[in-house]
Structures are given as C-alpha cells and as structure tokens.
C-alpha cells in the first residue's frame, strides 16, 4: 500500500492497522525519515518537498512491488509526505511485515534506499540566508545500487 499526502501520520496507528488480520506476521520493521536541522552554521528552518503527482504514486507502487517480488512480505506500507515541513517533522514512513525478521528488515532497508533515488521528489531547504535545492548524493546512488545484483 502506498500513500502520498501533505498530512502527518501516526506510526503506531499505521503499524497496527497494517498488521490487522494478517495472522502470518511474525515481525514488523519500520523506518521513519525526519527533517534534520543540520549543523549550526547552515541550520535549516524548513524543507519543502515538491513532487510529480501521478508519477510519484506510480513510482512508489513500482518500488513496493519490487520489494514484494524479492521478499515474502505479509504486508507493506509506504507513506511519503510533500509540502513545507519544519525540522523534526516526519517525511516518510516505510513499514514491512513478514513471518520472520530477516525479510522484514531487508525489505525495509531496500525500500528506503530505492525511494531516495527513484521516487520523484525534490527538496528545497530554507536557511537564514536563503533557500537551496538539495542535490542528489552519490552515496544514495551507491546504497540503491547494492541491491541490484541481488
């Protein structure tokens, strides 16, 4: 299941709702991405996430389908927010549930790595001196690539 929304989410409530009715679940892994304020010299005051409505949903659904092809998941959820967020606010939630922990952990990490490089979002950071677009990091590409051979 995927959702793209402006509103915040309740991690515990989402986890409970996802697991409900799945008696085969033995472990649930989750990841919550949060807006980081950063070091004092460049402290950000807000981050605005822009996205591509339509394509974002398709890309997230494709990433989730790939995870479910690779691991035997009982249930999965991706929620990605857009709009203006302040430091400490939640950006993204990934939950994976499986009968055993190994699949849940691996699929969760895979989903977060692929979100970084494949989901059409762009981040505009505001600081005291102005705003700047966050550049894609080579380290994110490397993190995403290590799953390709598997």
């Amino acid at each position: 299941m995927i959702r793209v929304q402006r509103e915040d989410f309740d991690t515990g409530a989402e986890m409970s709702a996802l697991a409900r009715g799945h008696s085969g679940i033995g472990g649930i892994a989750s990841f919550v991405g949060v807006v980081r304020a950063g070091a004092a010299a460049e402290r950000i005051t807000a981050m605005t996430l822009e996205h591509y409505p339509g394509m974002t949903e398709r890309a997230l659904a494709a990433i989730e389908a790939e995870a479910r092809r690779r691991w035997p998941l009982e249930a999965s959820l991706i929620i990605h927010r857009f709009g203006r967020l302040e430091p400490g606010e939640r950006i993204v939630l990934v939950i994976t549930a499986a009968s055993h922990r190994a699949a849940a952990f691996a699929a969760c990490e895979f989903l977060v790595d692929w979100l970084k490089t494949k989901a059409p979002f762009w981040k505009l950071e505001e600081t005291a001196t102005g705003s700047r677009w966050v550049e894609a990091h080579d380290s994110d590409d490397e993190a995403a690539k290590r799953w390709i051979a598997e």
Partner: protein
Amino acid sequence: MRLLYFAWLRTRIGTAEETVEPPADVRTVAALVEWLKSRGPNFAEALKTQKLVRVAVNQEYVGYDHPLAPGDEVALFPPVTGG
C-alpha cells in the same frame, strides 16, 4: 505535447507546465532537449548540463534515446531526492 518542469528546472525556466508543438524532426528526448535549448537563454541555461536533467515520458523514467509521440507528457527534472 505537454511539458512539465520540476524543482530548479522549473524556477530557472520560469514555468511549471506548457503545451508545445515541436518541429516534425524532433522525434527523441535528445532532440526535444536540443530544441528546447534554442527557445531562449532561460532554457539554454537550465538544460546545459545533461547529467542533471532527468526525463520521464508518460510518467516513466526514460533515456535520451527514447522516441516521442505528439500526445506524450514529457517531464524534465533534476536527479530526485526522495526519502
């Protein structure tokens, strides 16, 4: 053909969306980008570094050799930063 621009490509070009009719010889993404660059200094500046300009056609990532059809939705944007 419907064109969409995102993030700093949108701000540098100065519009989020437009409908264009490129010349008949514009049959690939590469040719479209070259034609767009000729439309003004804002386009030339925004599109000057190819590796920073990613493309989706009909909401799927494609390469520069991807063919184009008149009714396509083509989006140009910088490398994505999700998560």
